């Protein structure tokens, strides 16, 4: 826990903007009607699916307001991931020419968010499948997701993903090459981040209620995880 607090302290000291973005996203998530959050849809949608067509789960995503669901997905990624991005964000900012920094950050963010949306889609799909399969044991689903998250933590693949998360890559400074490198940095950071954190993300999606609280708990777990650098 001391490690997580130290990470937070560094966040405030070095990249307070990331903390502000994260807090704003948490406020947005807390303010959204839970039925229309991505986790809420995952839970409520499948209850309707059971009555209608069990395996037509893809229609889940259209049950609520699509705009709000996308917004909630975006907020979920920002709320949970922004505090973990201190190193790559700092790298992009300081390794770019001053006049290109804003553009570089936008490109990095865009490239970082896209794979996460895809991953979120896959995770929601997985949660829906599990929920439909285990419809009569919905509490078991949360326990299974928690266990999966714990098991993933001790695998060598997870450790490798975490180590690669900390890797910063060369950024060319001029012209199109600079934009390409910003995009590539976002994409690569996102892929290793997903590898590190996907199991943490699955837990709130597997919960029946109190999704925001589960997200918060998993965010703390992510911070603790990040503070224990791989050896």
């Amino acid at each position, binding site marked *: 826990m001391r490690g997580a*607090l130290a990470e937070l302290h560094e966040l405030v000291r070095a990249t307070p903007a990331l903390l502000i973005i994260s807090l704003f996203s948490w406020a947005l998530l807390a303010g959204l009607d839970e039925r229309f959050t991505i986790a809420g849809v995952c839970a409520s949608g499948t209850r309707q699916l059971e009555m209608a067509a069990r395996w037509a789960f893809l229609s889940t995503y259209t049950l609520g307001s699509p705009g709000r669901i996308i917004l909630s997905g975006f907020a979920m990624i920002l709320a949970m991931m922004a505090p973990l991005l201190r190193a790559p964000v700092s790298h992009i900012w300081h390794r770019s020419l001053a006049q290109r920094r804003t553009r570089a950050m936008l490109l990095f963010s865009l490239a970082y968010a896209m794979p996460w949306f895809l991953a979120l889609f896959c995770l929601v799909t997985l949660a829906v499948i599990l929920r439909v399969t285990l419809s009569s044991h919905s509490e078991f689903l949360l326990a299974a997701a928690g266990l999966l998250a714990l098991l993933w933590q001790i695998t060598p693949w997870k450790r490798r993903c975490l180590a690669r998360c900390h890797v910063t890559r060369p950024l060319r400074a001029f012209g199109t090459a600079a934009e390409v490198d910003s995009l590539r940095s976002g994409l690569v950071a996102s892929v290793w981040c997903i590898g590190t954190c996907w199991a943490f993300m699955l837990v709130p999606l597997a919960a029946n209620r109190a999704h925001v609280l589960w997200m918060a708990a998993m965010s703390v777990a992510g911070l603790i995880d990040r503070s224990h650098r791989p050896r």
Partner: protein
Amino acid sequence: MTITRQDVWKHLQRGSPWSDSLLWYARAVGEMQKRPITDKTSWRYLAAMHGFEPSLWRAQGYLQPNEKLPPQAEQDRYWQQCQHQSWYFLPWHRAYLRSFEEIVRATIAALEEPGAPRDWALPYWNYSDRNDPNALKLPAAFAQKSLPDGSPNPLFVKARFGASVAAADVDLTHRLAEDRFTGTTVGVLHGIGGPRTPFSHSGEAEGLIEAAPHDLVHVDVGGRGGLMSDPRTAALDPVFWVHHSNIDRLWVVWRHRKADNHDPTDSAWLKGPANRRFATFDAQGKDLPSTPGDVLDVRKLGYDYEDISDPLKGAVRRKLRLDEFAAAGGARIAARGQPMAEKPTAELLGAGDRSVRLGHARVSAEVKLAAAPRSRLSESFAQPGDQEPDRVFLNLENIRGSNGAAKFDVFLGSKKPGAAAPRLVGTFSLFGLEAASDQKGAHGGKGLSKVLEVTQVVDAMHLGHELDSNLLEVQIVPRSDVRDDDGITIGHVSLYRQRQP
């Protein structure tokens, strides 16, 4: 009781490579080498606290196949702790040396031989001592195959291929003159102590003392394939400890040479690292966990150094730079009393557009300067009053490959027609390269990064009107056994300007 660590070259018996201190050290090392690796006071256990890689240890003959190791939980707690490329580099090694010294002293006492000292102290190798013609040479006792009584010398190591260090590698002028301990700004120097990091066995850029003399002495002494050239085997070589005793001494020297040279006062450092303590222990194996705040004062730890005089005689970085600038024909900029509280700011000045492959021959890389920061750099030379012009730093990022003993000189010049030939800016080594390049390791394969100050060369280029060109040339020349198949690449070359307060 305060014990005094002495200069290893200064107390030799007449006509002999041995001093009493070294003889007792050798006997204790021999005793500790007999202990099993599972014994916390054994030679190998203590070396593994710095770094451990079973395949390397086996290849060097320090680990037998299927030899019993401590339980994994114990290894996780005590082994592979060495802090490099971190502001914990100096305090972690101080705590580590204190533990080692106490164990050696207890081992000497347990030998129960006549005359065994109760106040044995770890000697230091002051290779930077310009008054001693022997200083650059490996202390001769470490090269003897036998002790005076004819028995094998435990200080002798086969896998040590250097007999001396280069004078330029241990020059302290632009090291100790720096007045900051740490730094947080990307692209510029991180003070004498290293960048602000968490507990880090796998950093990137390093502090001034770590870069040189620390890294360069490691590879000068170790040579290609030598124990000292890799952090995972370095502490197996008995000379490691006298080298680090000197590195610890340099921290004391820096701290004492100027009243306003301060260690960090940030609790993140004093009480850090956040998620663990430095895990060391005493001669009985009893835990002695510590933080940087616990090891600040060497006298409180029970030792001091024979010599902590200032080799720079009070010289400070700003004055050194401005005097050289004026001597080369630049404007004389007034001295300043107290340093400004304001922190310097930095920005990217220019960069290359491709990676650079290093090998046995000289290589060149082009660096393009961006118009706006280049203009700000030029303007900094024309500021009124006592304002110091910008400092400039060359960054070599994401260096990967397989020869940690490699060492290179770096030259910087202008591509402007008629400009002077590229000038030497410094030397860097790749100590720790293999581990940093391992994608499956803690570094994730990001490699090492080096920051070299090029301010003096940029000053000269400014005075020669060579900065009119927006293209600079960086030349990198191997100064050790480097082969093309070492696969050494620099991912990116860039320049930073740092506005001075």
